[in-house]
């Protein structure tokens, strides 16, 4: 995927073989199904649920890229999410910048922040790194809660509400697909191989002449960029932002969704976040019980599906499909 001399004919052919393979067909069918949500249901509610799930997909995938491939477990991903969200909100609300520009600025600021967090924290390893990033996001949370920066505890609200929710739906779907494909391409490229080498054995990677610090920083920046995109989209969609976006809960959401889907898969995040969002929406009727049931499901999934849900399910269903077709 990384060779840039694009030969249209052969890539078309490659696309056909991929689309006809089992995984390709499933992927295309799911995308088609998503595309059909607004026209078939015609309800803004379903579209909104799907939008939330898609935004979280990008967020979870960005965490997966950092943790699953580069092996740097971050507990403070909400920092990137929140910073980008705040920047976007401030630009749109106070300076009336166009949302695309605001989105890109938000994501770039998130990249800067990932450098800011990454440079001191990358001296740390394993649980220490996780805690260092967690501490950063908590400090941001407290700063925004305490001070009067950008609206204090109230945050910024009253962003322009979009005219057409279905339009947003398709836009966000496009952004999600592009981000996922780009992340997967990064993971499959040489850069991805280097990241995997660092994850598997950092000392050995260092000894093989890989500048581990630089590559870890690059991984942090890429991950921060996509987390920033997710944060900006989230804020634009919610039309408001408050310090709660920094709370560790959001970081854990990303971790949970990525691991439900399966670590180091990138695409698994879609399954994780759709399951997560749909489950929490459908359980809303149970009010207080909802989160209890949700926590139980979570414990069971983590306990019994340590590979995540996506790959095992795909393999099983493929076997079944092959049997049905009589192979």
């Amino acid at each position, binding site marked *: 995927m990384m060779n840039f001399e694009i030969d249209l004919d052969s890539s078309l052919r490659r696309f056909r073989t991929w689309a006809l393979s089992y995984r390709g067909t499933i992927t295309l069918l799911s995308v088609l199904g998503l595309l059909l949500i607004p026209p078939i249901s015609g309800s803004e509610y379903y579209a909104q649920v799907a939008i939330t799930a898609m935004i979280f997909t990008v967020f979870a995938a960005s965490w997966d890229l950092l*943790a699953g491939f580069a092996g740097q*477990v971050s507990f403070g991903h909400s920092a990137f999410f929140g910073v980008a969200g705040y920047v976007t909100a401030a630009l749109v609300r106070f300076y009336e910048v166009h949302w695309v520009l605001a989105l890109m600025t938000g994501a770039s600021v998130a990249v800067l922040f990932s450098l800011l967090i990454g440079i*001191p*924290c990358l*001296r*740390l390893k*394993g*649980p*220490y790194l*996780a*805690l*260092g990033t967690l*501490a*950063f996001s*908590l*400090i941001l949370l*407290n700063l925004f809660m*305490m001070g009067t920066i950008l609206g204090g505890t109230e945050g910024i609200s009253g962003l322009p509400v979009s005219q057409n929710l279905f339009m947003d739906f398709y836009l966000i779907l496009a952004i999600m697909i592009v981000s996922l494909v780009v992340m997967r391409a990064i993971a499959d490229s040489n850069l991805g191989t280097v990241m995997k080498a660092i994850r598997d054995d950092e*000392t050995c990677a260092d000894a093989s002449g890989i500048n581990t610090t630089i590559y870890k920083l690059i991984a942090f920046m890429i991950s921060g960029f996509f987390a920033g995109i997710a944060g900006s989209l989230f804020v634009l969609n919610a039309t408001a932002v408050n310090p709660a976006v920094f709370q560790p809960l959001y970081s*854990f959401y990303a*971790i*949970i969704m990525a*691991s439900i889907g399966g*670590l180091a898969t990138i695409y698994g995040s879609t399954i994780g976040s759709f399951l997560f969002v749909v489950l929490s929406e459908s359980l809303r009727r149970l009010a*207080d*019980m909802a*989160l*209890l049931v*949700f*926590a*139980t499901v*979570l*414990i069971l999934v*983590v*306990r019994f599906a*340590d590979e995540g849900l996506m790959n095992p399910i795909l393999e099983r269903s493929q076997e079944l499909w092959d049997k049905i077709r009589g192979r």
Partner: protein
Amino acid sequence: MLIFGTIQGALLALLALGFSLVYGVGGVLNLSHGAFYLITAYVFYWTIPLFGMTISAVLALAVVVGIAAATFLALIKPLQDTHIGVVLVTFALAFFFEQFVKVVGDPRTHYIVPYVPGPVEFLGVRFQAQLVILLVGSLILVTLVTLFINKSKIGKSIRAVSQDAEAAKLMGINTDLVMMTSLMLSALLVGFAAILYAPGNFIAPRIGWGYLLLAFAVTIFGGMGSIPGSIVAAFIMGYARSFSDYFISTAFSEIIPIVVILVMLLVRPQGLLGKKELQ
């Protein structure tokens, strides 16, 4: 102020000791540590009207130790090999207990009446008599646990496993059992912290996270897995918090543990008395 610092330190020592122990022995980052506090406080609160103070305290401790054992057998042991799995499952468990308390009880804040009534005056400072119990209880417990780990046979195997789990296993130590014991011990300590500190204070379903963060901060400050380190760090942190309460503002003392974590991680990642790990 010094007295409040000492009391804070005593509480933090109870919280952090168990956390540090579990991390040191099995490398398990137990995110449900705060939830253990929560569940003890609530069981205690619920059963007081039924059985009275002493019995419900014992009951609450028994429940939390039982939960710790069950957690280890059902959740942590099968997932031991995947580091992230343990973190996730303990996080989910903490989340579960928070919601459980919300559903079974109610989300409101409650107040447990202290079982030692009345304020005490000491060197011109007035404070709740309950806090004296906390101080004394904590000192006794910390001494007992330190003795237990240094002198007893199980303590010896706990130390062996924390030094080198594989070698300990080869020497015929049941590492799983040792891990379970240390998790139960940690639950016992945090349970005592809850029983000694919760009366006279407010409890609500969300409090678990705050105590988890405190335990975290102290453990990192003192060095992950170092028991004397966490005790020293607990008292330093206690004084720091009460000083900032007094001189700066209460809001600021909330951030202190986080800032301490960060500075400590950057300057000396292995903590005050931690051992440096070889690669």
